[in-house]
């Protein structure tokens, strides 16, 4: 099962209730957190995806298990775009040819629905406590969706003694290469 911050049970509810409930439930999440919506209404898939894009949330994907649909939505951020400050950056092309570690700091659910093959997943929120999983001697390409979280992650790594750290710009939202799913 894909990791999410909150679960919403909308099973057995007919349209419009899955969306009405999702809209309500997502207000309790912090920006960037992931909500899992369990629904049995088949129409909820197209509607949730369309609704999410109109209100600025990120629809990650849907899993089907038996009659139940598990939708994953990441709460959109309303914060203004902040300037990225980490000075060592690489492009998507460069990481394809490089031999460093691709470190994907998006949420586990985002990673599950599509990442670059071989990328290691450590969500931004867990990074500080999992530093020992990383090799200080190796090049690390930090990637997220747009380059914002990876900017912060790269700074965190540099502050902890990692010297060969690069922020990947732009990020997964412009990656056109092969995608691996773990669902």
């Amino acid at each position: 099962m894909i990791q999410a911050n909150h679960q919403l049970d909308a099973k057995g509810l007919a349209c419009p209730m899955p969306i009405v409930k999702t809209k309500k439930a997502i207000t309790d999440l912090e920006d960037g957190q992931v909500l899992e919506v369990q629904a049995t209404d088949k129409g909820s898939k197209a509607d949730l995806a369309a609704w999410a894009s109109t209100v600025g949330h990120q629809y990650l994907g849907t899993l089907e298990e038996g009659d139940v649909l598990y939708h994953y939505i990441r709460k959109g951020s309303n914060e203004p775009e902040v300037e990225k400050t980490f000075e060592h950056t690489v492009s998507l092309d460069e990481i394809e040819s490089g031999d460093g570690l691709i470190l994907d700091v998006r949420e586990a659910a985002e990673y599950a629905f599509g990442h670059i093959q071989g990328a290691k997943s450590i969500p931004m929120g867990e990074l500080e406590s999992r530093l020992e999983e990383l090799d200080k001697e190796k090049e690390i390409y930090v990637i997220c969706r747009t380059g914002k979280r990876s900017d912060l992650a790269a700074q965190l790594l540099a502050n902890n003694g990692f010297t060969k750290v690069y922020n990947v710009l732009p990020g997964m939202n412009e990656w056109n290469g092969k995608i691996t799913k773990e669902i």
Partner: protein
Amino acid sequence: MTVNKWTAAQVARKVIDNEELFILDVRNHDAFEDWKIDGHKFEYLNIPYFELLEGVEEILPKLPTDKEVLVVCAKEGSSVMVAEMLSEAGREVAYLEGGMKSWSSYLEPIKVSDLENGGELYQFVRLGKGCLSYMVISEGEAAIIDAVRFTDVFTNFAKEKGVEIKHVFDTHLHADHISGGRQIAANTGAIYYLPPKDATEVVFDYTPLTEGLNVKIGASQIDVNALYSPGHTIGSTSFVIDNQFLLTGDILFIDSIGRPDLAGLAEDWVGDLRETLYSRYRELAEDLVVLPAHFMIIDELNEDGTVARRLDDLFKENHGLNIKDEAEFRRTVTDNLPPQPNAYEQIRQVNMGKITPNNDEQTEMEIGPNRCAVR
């Protein structure tokens, strides 16, 4: 303000009687673009219900006050919610009971013509899906052609008319909708006919429908003559009824012709399609009235709601019957085809008896427009 509930039958009447209606369709944009309730004088506004959760104030100026407003969604729930919000805002609106799901399943029986000695020919127009089924009635007996899966509609109609269903035909193995033919035959003891060339994979018993088969309905002997007319499928068969009507199945429509690719053999069947349309049909009497198994757009409906046109008119007006060059014809019916109907491969499996989905699953498979034609 009160919220009114309309049935699909009421909406069908609006379509057929050419009346005005303003439809507020609250499904998402993709669904609306793909498929909606068509009416000659209908106006539309498509705003997904999930954009109205905060309130309907923003759309009030876009809704007319001098016209009836019908809120439509997929199954009903969202349209009830939006209709109630509009009602609280002081507007009188209605919602469609059962949503597009019920629209997709509604059949309007319309009399096409009287036949000899009190016989009658009815066309069952499935407005939401563009399917056309037929019932020939004569002296206490009935034959049904290309029945859709709402078998009660046909058996109840026969009961009302006091006739016994004796023969049930499918002109071909359908790919866009689930046939009700086999079920009706099982329920009534009628004979179920299917073209054997389309039935090589079916897992049930049927009576072969082949060229020259002649069935009489009632004592006055209304003739139903089978005419082999391949092209949409390899078994596709037409009927000439009472020497007046040509039931073309999915081979020839009013404003388009059948597509040859739904069973995966477009290249092989183009020649058959051309042969049927450009030779076999040419040999028939030109004053036959063509009754197809589908219509694609609302403009194909006549004033009384039927879909019917004289064969000689179609030879003049139907683009697909007027492509002189064979290579161009081949290109027209094999290149740039419209998207295939929703779940058409599964639907063929159902019609072969290989899978038996429940009613909800069948509804889901049939969602969306039919797409059996090439224009």
